């Protein structure tokens, strides 16, 4: 882990979905690590990628930008990207950036996996 980075990222396959589960803060320093795991998820060619943000207590715009980049890759690959479990503070930055309607968002990981 590089100096200053506190992000840990879980990565697993659940059925047809790949679940990426970051834990901690996603700020300037951690966005690069986060991007690496999201790229790995896209490389898996799974039809559904769920990013479980339940254990992310803070995100700034470099973190959001990483997810926007991931959304663009999803659209290119015709795969589905779902953000799950955002707390109020993290959701607020998506609202401020008016991205809350751009992403597919589910209240929980279970909801994201159950989505038709």
């Amino acid at each position, binding site marked *: 882990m590089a100096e200053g980075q506190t992000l840990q990222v879980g990565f697993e396959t659940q059925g047809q979905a790949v679940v990426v589960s970051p834990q901690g803060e996603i700020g*300037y*320093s951690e966005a690069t690590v986060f991007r690496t795991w999201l790229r790995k998820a896209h490389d898996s060619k799974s039809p559904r990628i769920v990013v479980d943000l339940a254990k992310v207590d803070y995100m*700034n715009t470099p973190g959001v930008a990483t997810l926007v*980049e991931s959304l*663009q890759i999803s659209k290119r690959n015709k795969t589905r990207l779902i953000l799950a479990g955002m707390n109020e503070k993290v959701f*607020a930055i998506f609202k401020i*950036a008016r991205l809350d309607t751009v992403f597919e968002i589910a209240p929980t990981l279970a909801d994201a996996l159950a989505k038709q």
Partner: protein
Amino acid sequence: MTHPTLKPDAHIRVELLSNPTYTSGMKDLVHAVAKRLGFAELDCGHIALAVDEALCNIMTHGYEQRMDQPIWLSLWPLDPDGGKPGIKIVIEDRAKQIEPEKIRGRELQDVKPGGLGVHVIREVMDEVVYEKRDGGGMRLTMIKHSPAHCAGGPVVGGKGCHG
């Protein structure tokens, strides 16, 4: 001796290097101070986010990811004796100067990575002013008023009090 860039009357003055390792600590410091000054939790989070975004912008765009350059943060409580919270934060650097009117976030309809930091700062703070510093670098002044201070006050930049 006071460093010439640090404001002598500021209640908090910090000099840090342009190393991303320190942004989280600065964010937490400002959050804690805002809380002590009486801001609600949501506002504390917004003020801390604005500082974090400002530091990220300086490190990324101003100093182009060089990690050994100076950044100065000064903080004042507004109306400290009046019992109503307000906060003024000034962040200065010695990075390349750009015209303040050119500092703007991207159009939000244009969904792409990056360009969101300035938009977020203007959205969450009541007053936001970018200036060129004498002798090089930029100065960002951000003010957040408590709701009690918002009636009829001047708004220099940012979204104003009730947005």
